[in-house]
């Protein structure tokens, strides 16, 4: 596929003088920062003061921020997901029917959006925004026009015969002034005297709406008896024009034969000058014979070349084959423009469609349209029709992914539409996942709710690194704000042992300072998460000791306390606190620590007091320096000795009995 060469878009930055200065910039997740600067170190001193003291936020997809287009994005997302799930086994007619249904759904979303935009445009108070909305309406209208044609040619793949019926519907749908004109004329007191009466009749004939045209003619006949017979004859011709109707079983050859016959009759009337008395009726008859010169006299009513094309085919070659379309299209375009103007982008897109050049259609659309929505969805649908591969272009399916990735990235720039983007990335087999990974971790986590939403998305997709990172960010944020409970639960979720240790230490420090724990719920319900780090285990167990003590289960509390030290789970710096916690247990009336346990406690205390090598000189230092600590140690020694004596006596008497 050859490259389309077009100049890159220029975005003007107000205030910056590109002739004298440069710009520094930075990429953000959805936006770009820009600012005037001067990189060259040889700055003229008089230029030191910034001439443009602004920082600019530059965004990519303008349409992403439109309130009305949001509906387009939201609703087409559902259709897109449905399409991805279409059973691959579905083949033949049922598959085609389903794809056509999907295509129609997309179009009805575009139409709904267009209606709404139109209402907004009418209601707009200032003319400038009214114009903006109107131009959006015409963009949407063009999208629908192109999509509809693609649907007929590529998805429906209508054969000769039905093809023209589809094209007629297409033209009728998009050149719809006739309806309001008709209402206007019929609503007037004397329709046949209305200034637009003949325009209306002509347009109806041009669009092949012959029944309505006939009714109009009968009004003329009533009002003007002199031409009543001419009207009747022309009306009969209209009535008898053979048309392929969907339910009819006649073959194409039969139709062609009948049509030929009918056409001869029309020609005969023209030759016999049946309508010579009324040039208007004669013109209508000529139109019905597909006379090009007459058709072109009604350029204004046809309004565009593709209407001309369809009318011309209707009255000259109603059973046109798809393969011949491009020939008629090209000649219609040439005749219609008549060398007076050159084709516009829309003309080129439609022409490419008539030529069945899908890639050209997509390429031209992506250049001309202001968003990726259209090309991404249309390409995806055509890919599902297995049209891109059949063109034998090696990058066929890559183009689908390329466009979907662009569209999804654009959605991620928006504070809420990003959620739709996730699913689009999911359906990009090659780079979808890695793109999602890069985008999702940049979603600002302003609220817990949003964070949980992002996490769920990552967890569903086993994006372990993103889950870890997000939890880590939240844990760090919580620690900085001194919300220890939240910090702990996030670090557990991140499975970040080092950070869990750090937070546990904070908890223990707070306990030492304040004598109580915060976030009891969390610590009491750690469960297996406790095993994440030694310090966290200790925190959980230590809290359990407090609970047992509070429930007066002293024996259990005592053995847990001791095991915390003997198993080395408790950090040595915390032993003094633990031993102090043992004091009230030692002072209870009944004996709680057995003699054996008491020996262990004594060993722990002496270990600590003597400051064994490797156990941290700081503790020993502190013990020596601090009078209170010395007193504590003495009290402990005393309590331990007394408890030992009681325990020995009790154990002796128990054994003795």
């Amino acid at each position, binding site marked *: 596929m050859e490259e389309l060469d077009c100049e890159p878009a220029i975005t003007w930055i107000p205030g910056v003088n590109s002739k004298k200065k440069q710009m520094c910039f930075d990429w953000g997740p959805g936006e770009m920062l820009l600012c005037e600067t001067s990189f060259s170190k040889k700055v003229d001193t008089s230029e030191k003061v910034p001439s443009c003291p602004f920082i600019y936020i530059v965004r990519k997809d303008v349409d992403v921020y439109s309130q009305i287009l949001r509906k387009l994005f939201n609703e087409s997302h559902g259709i897109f997901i449905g399409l991805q799930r279409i059973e691959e086994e579905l083949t033949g007619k049922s598959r085609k029917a389903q794809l056509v249904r999907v295509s129609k759904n997309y179009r009805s979303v575009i139409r709904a959006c267009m209606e709404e935009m139109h209402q907004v445009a009418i209601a707009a108070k200032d003319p400038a925004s009214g114009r903006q909305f109107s131009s959006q309406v015409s*963009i949407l209208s063009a999208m629908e026009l192109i999509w509809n044609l693609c649907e007929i040619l590529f998805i429906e793949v209508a054969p000769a015969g039905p093809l023209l019926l589809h094209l007629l519907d297409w033209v009728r749908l998009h050149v719809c002034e006739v309806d309001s004109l008709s209402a206007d004329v019929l609503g007037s007191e004397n329709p046949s005297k209305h200034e637009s009466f003949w325009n209306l009749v002509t347009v109806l004939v041009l669009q092949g709406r012959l029944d309505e045209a006939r009714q109009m003619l009968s009004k003329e006949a009533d009002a003007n008896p002199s031409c009543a017979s001419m009207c009747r004859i022309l009306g009969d011709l209209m009535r008898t024009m053979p048309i392929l109707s969907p339910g009819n079983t006649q073959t194409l050859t039969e139709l062609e034969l009948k049509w030929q016959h009918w056409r001869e009759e029309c020609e005969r009337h023209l030759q016999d000058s049946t309508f010579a008395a009324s040039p208007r009726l004669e013109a209508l008859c000529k139109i019905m014979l597909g006379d090009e010169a007459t058709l072109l006299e009604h350029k204004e009513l046809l309004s565009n070349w593709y209407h001309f094309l369809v009318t011309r085919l209707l009255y000259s070659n109603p059973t046109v084959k798809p393969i011949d379309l491009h020939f008629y299209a090209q000649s219609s375009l040439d005749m219609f423009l008549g060398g007076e103007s050159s084709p516009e982008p829309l003309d080129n897109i439609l022409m490419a469609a008539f030529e069945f050049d899908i890639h050209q259609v997509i390429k031209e659309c992506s250049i001309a*349209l202001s968003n990726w929505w259209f090309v991404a969805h249309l390409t995806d649908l055509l890919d599902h029709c297995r049209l891109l591969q059949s063109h034998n272009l090696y990058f066929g399916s890559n183009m689908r992914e390329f466009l979907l990735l662009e569209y999804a990235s654009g959605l991620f720039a928006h504070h809420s539409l990003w959620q739709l983007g996730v699913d689009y990335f999911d359906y990009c087999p090659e780079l979808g996942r890695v793109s999602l990974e*890069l985008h999702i971790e940049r979603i600002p986590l302003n609220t817990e709710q949003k964070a949980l939403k992002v996490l769920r998305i990552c967890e569903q997709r086993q994006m372990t690194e993103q889950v870890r990172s997000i939890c880590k960010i939240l844990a760090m944020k919580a620690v900085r704000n001194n919300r220890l409970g939240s910090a702990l639960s996030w670090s557990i979720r991140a499975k970040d042992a080092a950070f869990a240790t750090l937070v546990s230490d904070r908890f223990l420090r707070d306990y030492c300072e304040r004598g109580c724990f915060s976030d009891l719920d969390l610590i009491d319900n750690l469960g297996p998460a406790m095993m994440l780090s030694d310090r966290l285990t200790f925190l959980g167990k230590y809290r359990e000791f407090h609970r047992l003590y509070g429930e007066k289960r002293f024996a259990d509390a005592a053995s847990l306390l001791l095991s915390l030290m003997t198993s080395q789970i408790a950090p040595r710096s915390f032993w003094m606190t633990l031993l102090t916690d043992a004091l009230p247990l030692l002072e209870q009336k009944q004996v709680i620590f057995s003699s054996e346990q008491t020996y262990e406690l004594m060993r722990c205390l002496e270990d600590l007091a003597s400051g064994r090598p490797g156990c941290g000189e700081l503790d020993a230092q502190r013990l020596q320096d601090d009078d209170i600590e010395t007193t504590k140690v003495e009290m402990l020694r005393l309590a331990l000795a007394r408890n030992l004596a009681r325990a020995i006596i009790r154990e002796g008497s128990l054994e003795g009995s």
Partner: protein
Amino acid sequence: MFVARSIAADHKDLIHDVSFDFHGRRMATCSSDQSVKVWDKSESGDWHCTASWKTHSGSVWRVTWAHPEFGQVLASCSFDRTAAVWEEIVGESNDKLRGQSHWVKRTTLVDSRTSVTDVKFAPKHMGLMLATCSADGIVRIYEAPDVMNLSQWSLQHEISCKLSCSCISWNPSSSRAHSPMIAVGSDDSSPNAMAKVQIFEYNENTRKYAKAETLMTVTDPVHDIAFAPNLGRSFHILAIATKDVRIFTLKPVRKELTSSGGPTKFEIHIVAQFDNHNSQVWRVSWNITGTVLASSGDDGCVRLWKANYMDNWKCTGILKGNGSPVNGTSQLGNSNPSLSSNTPNLQNSLHGSSAGRYFFPPLDSPRAGSRWSSCAQLLPPPAPLVEHSCDADSANLQYPHPRRGDRSRPLNPLPENEGV
């Protein structure tokens, strides 16, 4: 692309760098006025300056954010020969009530004897590390072993590059297959031409950085350098700002083919080279997915480069100053995002785009009864719509700063425009 907002920067001198944080909700700016400012985006989308403080005793060249896993941390580097690490303090003080935040200096990195020209945090999987480079030709890598104590940074590596360094870039790949890697560019303009881009790789065995490659073809001064996000590729993509924009791919040669233990060797290919900036290119930077490269050059433009689905690189957008002076009042108006969002702008396309081009012939006058006739004008030319957000105290948007003739920089007797 369209300008969605403009913010009065209120720096008293040239701004040298702007930097988004990881989530794009904060930004930092640094300037020759020796200060750094931090800006926060409110829920309503307005930007407010929440901190502004003097950071250095010389021009501040670069400012950059650490990954939020490490908290709210900034690094800056300056002409005053230092780099500094800053941390935001969450406090209950009056600052919070006034909507201001407080940043404290955690460390000053004073090892350089010349201007520190670039500072970059390492990819987060390496821990909290940062690299600086300086005009004396040395790249220094520092590490904060305890992320909760940012006052301790140890100098882990000093890599001598033999040439005055202007820029560094870490390879962001977190793949186990890739060792930590840093690319260094030099803007040394001395006549004895040498290759200006060197790539150093960390060797697990020697625990040192060793030179893996030198890009022999790049002999002109290099002003900026940027590895692209990896996207799971086996090879690396490196963009270079020199007298033109260049994009290289670096494909690691399979280990068994090279002598074991030594640094990885690469097959280096140039995949794109653009001289559209006409002269020097000063900055290059990748978007977050590495699909678009932006470059800024002497032509005063920022250009966007993108590879299409056939891997052809093309310019897809230009951001250009319109040269008109800033008019304080005329830009204040539109604060309605839905309005500006409806500015039809043909910015996007497969290969490029064309703003302001007519898709359909303009409709001269709306015809009676024409609803959305498809021959209506499809796209009017985009009008620049700009929202201004500014703090009350900077409501005067017209050149609020008196010119300052000379500034004294006690530490640096050297004038900045000479030989650094």
